[in-house]
């Protein structure tokens, strides 16, 4: 297999093909991490709401989860990117299409701030529905006695959540949350359909220019696997560090 072509000058961006791969990794990580911040915070709120006795908020969170779970991610990507600017009031739509993309010039990118934002919003809001389910099932897997004991001690319900339920629930859901982050990381490749040049898009682009299909895809596959393994190991360490002695989580993962 010939790998040397990675060091040749690529047709644009003033970089080698290796540079293209590097910028692909950077954008994959940036999109994933920004989307994860949205997914984790919104998903936590929704998941917690679904376990509370607040009837209307509870129902609203359920509707959110059902809508975002049951529309394919790629369709959601198109809704954000193509449809949203059209259904907003004309002035706002025009602002999104014309002014917003030029607010900042993104480094090493042949796409604008709008593609990046649409991808992050789409991935974040979509994954929030999945995170919400994990948070909910984590909370519901705790014995009911914990809440009751907290309330009997004179805690208010928010205090029970803050000091009793959530610290336990979040420890329990570290493994499923790790896989949710890895899902967002893999799903970030759908952003290539709206022009974000992340890692998979770079693989396609390099292949189109060099016809070195096998080494290109092999290199990108290795990068994905290495990042996945790194995240898995880091999260295992975290899980061990925060484990509460004596409280055994179900099944060793």
């Amino acid at each position, binding site marked *: 297999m010939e790998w040397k072509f990675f060091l040749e000058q690529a047709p644009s961006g003033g970089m080698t093909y290796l540079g293209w791969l590097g910028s692909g990794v950077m954008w994959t990580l940036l999109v994933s991490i920004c989307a994860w911040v949205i997914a984790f915070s919104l998903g936590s709120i929704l998941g917690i709401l679904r376990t509370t006795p607040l009837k209307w908020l509870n129902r609203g969170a359920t509707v959110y989860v*059902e*809508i975002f*779970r*049951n*529309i*394919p*991610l*790629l*369709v*959601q990507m*198109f*809704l954000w990117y*193509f*449809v949203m600017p*059209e*259904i907003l009031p004309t002035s706002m739509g025009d602002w999104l299409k014309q002014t917003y993309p030029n607010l900042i010039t993104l480094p090493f990118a042949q796409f604008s701030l709008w593609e990046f934002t649409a991808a992050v919003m789409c991935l974040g809001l979509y994954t929030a529905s999945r995170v919400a389910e994990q948070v909910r099932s984590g909370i519901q897997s705790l014995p009911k006695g914990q809440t009751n004991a907290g309330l009997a001690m004179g805690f208010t319900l928010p205090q029970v959540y803050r000091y009793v339920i959530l610290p336990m629930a979040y420890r329990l859901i570290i493994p499923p949350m790790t896989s949710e982050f*890895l899902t967002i990381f*893999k*799903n*970030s*490749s*759908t952003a*290539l*359909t709206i022009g974000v040049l992340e890692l*998979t898009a770079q*693989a*396609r682009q390099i*292949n189109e220019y060099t016809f070195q*299909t096998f080494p290109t*895809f092999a290199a*990108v*596959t290795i990068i*994905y*696997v290495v990042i*996945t*393994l790194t995240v898995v190991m880091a999260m295992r360490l975290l899980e061990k560090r925060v484990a509460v002695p004596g409280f055994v989580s179900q099944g060793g993962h």
Partner: protein
Amino acid sequence: MGDFDYKIIINNLPFLWDGLLLSLKLFCIALVGGIFFGTLLALARLSSWRVLSYTSAGFVNLIRSIPFILAIFWFYFLTPMLVGKITGQQGEAVGPFTSAIVAFIMVESAYYSEIIRAGIQSVPRGQPWAAYALGMNYWQAMGHIVLPQAFRNMLPIMLTQAIILFQDTSLVYVVGLKDFLGAASKAGQISGRIVELYIFVALVFLIICFGASRLVKYLQARMDAGRV
């Protein structure tokens, strides 16, 4: 939003219907193929023969750690090459649909094998032992005793995965296939009304997948009730 043009959807219904049929076809083939090869992968993974079990684990973990779209690209390039090697004819025309089917079966078999492995492990060890004690061989014990119970236990999860698979069929858009989303996208470009078409696609998916997930919930509740 006031100028939502319903006519554009009605005019394109036959075209969209063909797209939906292609999505459904891909879904059915990938589902059957994925469960079939997923079962084999799971059996290989649980095999006491190390080489087999490590190979299966390696394949499953590799597929599961790369994006679905990257797997589609891989098989988009690999399938024509492999088919050319097998038939001995270079440049054999393998359409994107065939490549997509191969990619989907491969990816789904990896995902299903993890579900099926858990299902097999949920069957008490005494069951295969009893089967062996009765003189059954490996395939008889698996086929008649273990797998039927395993599939029953994991039916809800397998159906949930099927709903995810149905949503994932939209990813074939990246190799230019006219599935439901691809057809809508094409019709949208021609008519210049992408808004109506994408919203329509989203609603159809929402109705199908929401309905299916309700059905799975109902099924699960009935199964739980049956288990005393």
